[in-house]
């Protein structure tokens, strides 16, 4: 039920009015709705990327596989990586940032709500753009190409981009990848980069400027700190990859030869530029999970986080060092010996701040009254698996050892232990932990634990044997191996493991859909938590906090509930339960007028224009290419101008507005007394 007053300023479109249903999602600028959009979109891409992985594993299950062609295999491992990195882990982390940042900081929304929506739509259209290569892309074999069959693989799977997520030039250049498929990856990554850049500026300003009273920097939850660090990593690394992608685009579209060695170009330059971005990027993937784990472990150990400032500064140190280690991805390239030694050393130093974090987490659990709930299990799984992945990572820092491991499955094992065992376990931990906050219901604990068990087992079954497959010399990115290599049995195990993971995801999806509708109603403060988002009703009201919170210490909410006894142990205050109920009651029933950011059509138009622009660049030689570019730019510019002319905020009034009141210049949209969400009244008071 909502009542919206017509705005004073006339705009091209009617002002968006829906607060429920399809159009409310299209026009929303509410950080929570945007988070949910991010979450579902990212999870859909996770399913797509997962199916791609299963197809790859079917092909590799036995020697001399014939399930996929070489071109299809190339495309699938490329899009698997691009999808999991850019379309799942990053946007899923962004879903958490969006949902939690304002709640953890005690704010009404992020600093720039509409830019937030723009980020989402650009991301969505970027993802669709990359996958549209299945329909529009072409992938002819290069002249003199060495793929068996040589000719064009015109099947849909054969026309997805296949240069690896790193798009190494000149392999991704016009000579070796003559079709348009690679263009979809190159320009798609550029689009996704724009989305990430916008949201990183937004998140940084939110964290610096939107903190509630008393929320000093060193009182912010670790998750907020990790978000800030991720945003800075993106802010400083994205422009580098943007230039590299522009150079590749001009190589492919406008005849330059930046990366063609034969014409004086520099293939190593691509590697340097790519990994200058690519290595900070891997911390972009892992730090959000580290933030989630740092929130979950103390809650379920019923202890404060051990060494809070050390964990925060270690996160900063990881990010800082992360800009100085990129060449360890290219130790097998032609780079000077001194540089190899230097980058080997700098890589090893990363283990120090990472180790600090691990020990702090262990010390957090130590002596705690541990509750082995699903989020806790996933967080513990994160710590264990990340240690394994981290240790194999240190072995790559030893240069001669790395020469043996480069481009083998040992690397694949390492990166999946840190990204699957690390990032994805952390994200699932967060999904279960904040499920009651999001839905107001509890997930099914038994199913959650089955999910964890299957995934933990399947994960080790899949990626564990890859270590020794790699050490036996099995090379990456190759679609067949012969029977006499003896690699068959372990590959079969790996394939079985991947299907165990897939099963565990099905369990999760069932748990999610079932619990969202039928789960038990979540109690107030279900986890006995420490952070501000648990002081408000679940699911979160549209206006977040009815009463603006004030913070006096780190983990303020927890300190309100707990006292120390003489031995320094936490003792729950007798009045704690009552206090929690009062807080949530007060936050659910605001007494003052609250203004919310007004919804807008323009973010989605801007995102769509961006996609048209990219199509125009790919097909700029066709007659309709230039018009597409012009239309795309016009859509972008006009939506930017358009949102300048619309009202920014709308008022939430607790008392509600009587729709029959002749005084109020309002109309009722979608009256629905059942769900009774907060009343929205649009005003233009300027």
């Amino acid at each position, binding site marked *: 039920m909502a009542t919206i007053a017509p705005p004073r300023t006339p705009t091209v479109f009617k002002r968006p009015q829906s607060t429920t249903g399809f159009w409310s999602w299209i026009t929303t600028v509410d950080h929570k709705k945007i988070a949910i959009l991010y979450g579902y979109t990212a999870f859909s891409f996770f399913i797509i990327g997962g199916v791609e992985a299963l197809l790859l594993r079917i092909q590799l299950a036995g020697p001399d596989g014939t399930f996929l062609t070489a071109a299809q295999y190339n495309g699938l491992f490329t899009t698997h990586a691009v999808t999991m990195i850019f379309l799942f882990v990053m946007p899923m982390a962004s879903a958490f940032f969006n949902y939690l940042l304002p709640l953890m900081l005690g*704010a*009404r*929304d992020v*600093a*720039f*709500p*509409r*830019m937030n929506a*723009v980020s989402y739509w650009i991301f969505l259209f970027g993802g669709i753009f990359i996958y549209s290569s299945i329909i529009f892309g072409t992938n002819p074999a290069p002249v003199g190409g060495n793929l068996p069959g040589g000719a064009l693989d015109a099947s849909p799977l054969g026309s997805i981009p296949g240069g690896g997520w790193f798009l190494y030039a000149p392999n991704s250049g016009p000579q070796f990848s003559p079709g348009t498929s690679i263009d979809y990856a190159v320009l798609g990554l550029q689009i996704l980069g724009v989305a990430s*850049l916008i949201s990183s*500026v*937004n998140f*940084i*300003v939110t964290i*610096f*400027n*939107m*903190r509630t009273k008393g*929320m000093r920097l060193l009182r912010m939850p670790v998750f907020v700190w990790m978000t800030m660090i991720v945003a800075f990593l993106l*802010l*400083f*690394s*994205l*422009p*580098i990859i*943007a*230039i*590299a992608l*522009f*150079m590749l685009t*001009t190589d492919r579209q*406008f*005849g*330059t*030869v*930046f990366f063609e060695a034969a*014409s*004086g*170009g*520099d293939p190593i*330059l691509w590697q340097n*530029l790519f990994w200058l971005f690519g290595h900070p990027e891997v911390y972009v993937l892992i730090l959000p999970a580290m933030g989630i784990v740092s929130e979950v472990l103390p809650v379920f150990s019923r202890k404060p986080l051990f060494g809070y400032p050390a964990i925060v500064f270690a996160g900063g140190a990881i990010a800082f060092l992360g800009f100085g280690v990129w060449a360890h991805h290219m130790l097998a390239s032609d780079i000077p010996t001194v540089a190899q030694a230097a980058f080997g050393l700098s890589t090893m130093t990363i283990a120090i701040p990472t180790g600090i974090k691990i020990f702090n987490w262990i010390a957090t659990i130590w002596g705690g009254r541990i509750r082995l709930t699903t989020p806790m299990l996933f967080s513990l799984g994160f710590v264990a698996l990340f240690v394994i992945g981290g240790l194999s990572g240190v072995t790559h820092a030893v240069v001669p050892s790395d020469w043996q491991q480069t481009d083998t499955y040992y690397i694949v094992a390492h990166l999946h232990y840190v990204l699957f065992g690390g990032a994805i376990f952390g994200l699932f931990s967060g999904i279960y932990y904040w499920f009651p906050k999001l839905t107001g219901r509890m997930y099914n604990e038994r199913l959650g634990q089955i999910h964890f068990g299957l995934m933990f087992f399947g994960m080790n079954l899949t990626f564990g044997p890859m270590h020794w497959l790699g050490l036996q010399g099995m090379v990456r990115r190759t679609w067949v191996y012969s029977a006499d290599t003896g690699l068959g049995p372990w590959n079969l195990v790996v394939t079985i493991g991947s299907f165990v993971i897939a099963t565990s995801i099905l369990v999760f999806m069932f748990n999610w859909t079932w619990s969202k509708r039928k789960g038990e109603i979540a109690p107030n403060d279900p986890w006995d938590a420490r952070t501000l988002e648990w002081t408000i009703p679940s699911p979160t009201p549209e206006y977040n906090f009815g009463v*603006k919170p004030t913070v006096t210490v780190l983990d303020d909410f927890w300190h309100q509930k707990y006292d120390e006894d003489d031995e320094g142990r936490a003792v729950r205050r007798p009045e704690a339960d009552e206090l929690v109920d009062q807080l949530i009651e007060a936050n659910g029933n605001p007494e*003052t*007028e*609250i*203004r*919310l*950011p007004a919804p807008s059509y323009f973010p989605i138009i801007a995102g769509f224009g961006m996609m048209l622009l990219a199509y125009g660049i790919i097909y700029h030689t066709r007659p309709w290419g230039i018009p597409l570019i012009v239309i795309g730019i016009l859509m972008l510019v006009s939506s*930017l*101008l358009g*949102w*300048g002319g*619309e*009202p*920014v*905020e709308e008022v939430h009034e607790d008392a509600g507005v009587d729709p029959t009141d002749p005084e109020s210049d309002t109309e009722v949209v979608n009256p629905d007394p059942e769900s009774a969400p907060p009343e929205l009244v649009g005003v233009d*008071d*300027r």
Partner: protein
Amino acid sequence: MTDIAHDDLDEAAGEHDSHGHHESTGVDNRKLGMWFFLSSEFLFFGTLITNYLIFKGRDFGPGSIYPVEFYDIPFTSISSFVLLMSSLTMVLAHAALARGDQNQTRTWLAATAMLGLVFVSGQFFEFTEFVLEGLKLSSNPAASAFYLLTGFHGIHVVVGVVLLLSLWGKSVRQPEGLSPEQGLNVELVGLYWHFVDIIWIVIFVVVYLIQ
């Protein structure tokens, strides 16, 4: 940019409990956002300049040509001077607005945009000359890197001119001139404009003067 403008425009207008509540750092959201955006832009141009330095002296085989051979230093010095002067007029526009002198604000905004346009026209002329003399985008990586670097700077100037002109348009349309809230927009565009100028100083010195 416009989005940012409005978020805080509204916030400055009233004391209500807004989503954009008080700024914890005391710096306006939009201004803070602009600073962080510009910090990212430094990396953008840093990469482009490095890229040019990597390729500028490479051997591209017999008969290879280099951007250096085509530079017209006196001409570029003048256009650089024009761009530098636009920073001065930008400051004057900002100062005039701070005094509440709407007429001068209007004038100096227009002057800044015009100087920016003169610079871009100069660059257009320069590119045309270079291409006619044989230095094309695809001649060799050094030429490509030169065009990519100076071209992206030119695009930044054009964006700045568009922003300046939209501010100028607003100040002409509104009889009372720019409101104090829109004044922050002048400051933001100013930040961006000075950044673009500073980058040009680096480009002019590193690319044109140090050969």
